[in-house]
């Protein structure tokens, strides 16, 4: 086994990992089960996390490549009991059905809105193009991300 230092949701962690472990393996083993395992091949986006601020498929990143990195999982997005505006918007717009894709979808939206406060619908579609939803389609998720963007702009302007 090897020792791996990561900052997960703001907390520095020293973890044991096998050289062949993916980031998905390590995070789920450590209890971050909001990181979903879907396809294991980068097709579905259920395992999306932020690696140094960018959304990635955790199933396609070897844990060893994340040494020293900062990871954000869905568990780290809310501020205590206060949901992040993207999470609130997903609830308000009904952009959740079975919920399996939701953590990944929310984190892809977070990556987008961190860099682009006023995304077009095309840019939103592009940002979540690696996150598959098999329940609802994408209309409500897109609307939720637009709503979240508006709310986040309003918060910043206040």
């Amino acid at each position: 086994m090897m020792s791996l230092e990561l900052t997960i949701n703001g907390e520095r962690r020293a973890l044991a990992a096998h050289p062949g472990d993916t980031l998905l393996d390590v995070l789920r083993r450590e209890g971050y089960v909001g990181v979903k395992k879907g396809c294991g091949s980068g097709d579905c986006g259920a395992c999306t996390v932020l690696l140094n601020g960018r959304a990635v498929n955790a199933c396609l990143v070897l844990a060893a490549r994340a040494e020293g990195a900062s990871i954000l999982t869905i568990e780290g997005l809310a501020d205590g009991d206060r949901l992040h505006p993207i999470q609130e918007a997903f609830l308000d717009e009904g952009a959740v059905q079975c919920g399996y894709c939701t953590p990944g979808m929310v984190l892809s939206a977070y990556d987008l809105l961190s860099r682009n406060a006023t995304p077009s619908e095309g840019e939103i579609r592009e940002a979540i193009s690696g996150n598959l939803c098999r329940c609802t389609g994408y209309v409500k998720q897109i609307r939720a991300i637009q709503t979240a963007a508006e709310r986040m702009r309003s918060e910043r302007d206040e």
Partner: protein
Amino acid sequence: MSETRTLDEAPTDAPLVSARGEGNNRREEREGDVEDVGLHHIQLIVRPSTASEAWRLRTSDPGATRFLGGGIDVVLYTPETVTTLIDLSRVARVGVSEDRRGLSIGAGTTLSELLEAREAGSWVGGFLADVLRCVASPLQRNVATVGGAAARAHPWSDVILAMLVLDAEVEVYDGVARSVPAAEFYAARAQDVAPLITAVRLPARPASARGAFEKFGRTGFDVGLLNCACVANVVRGLCGGARVAVGGTPGLARRLSDVEGFLEAKRLSRETIAEAAMLAARIVDARDDRRASETYRRTLTGVGIRRCLTQLAGIEGEGAL
């Protein structure tokens, strides 16, 4: 026990692979309902600091080692005979720079970093950025590196198609550092151990250079059934220095030099474009595979080249079939 360590932490004459001695029983060791997706055969990851050290490690046991860049293809396609990964994070330059000679892209640069780099965004009228936006999803572009995309050489690769029409040079290390034209690099890929790619250089092009790209797929995310690209200097309607390539045929992308020659100094009229498209469809090395038939790929080639050239010519209303 296996371990990850860096070469400067370990003596360079240390065994390349440390025996794990525990068998691959990790799945049984774990509790819970989630089966790991990791590579259970990997026992060691080493982090060399120089290209020469990385190359020495790779060639010392070619069957048991692989380079590790962004790592996507390593996770997806590494055979079980591989026990050691050579992490290139200390070797591969990250970043994009532009000088008189053109654009230099470090092999460790992710596709997203390249796409967002100011110099690359406007390269050949935005052509490079147009291609990169079509590669997989942002989730994968945030990890995949230029060096990895160039090294893996998937037949459907949009990146390699762009490299060919942009006259890219691949900077490699295989005992000596050298620069190889992309077309030559991919024609000579039969070596036992492919060279280590350190950078990709895109030579400067005239301000009049424009490019166009077409990709046919079942979904925007899926690998293409076929892709094609054209780059040319179009001055007062006349075509010069045309580069035309088709990929996913299902072979690796190749330039169509007969079509390039046909287009030289020609006015890009509808008739010329139609003739070039027919020529491309006829000579492309199309074959059947599980994704598409040869016949369908020839049709796609004609349509794709026609669309690309129409775009280069700036002819309105001809983009869609």
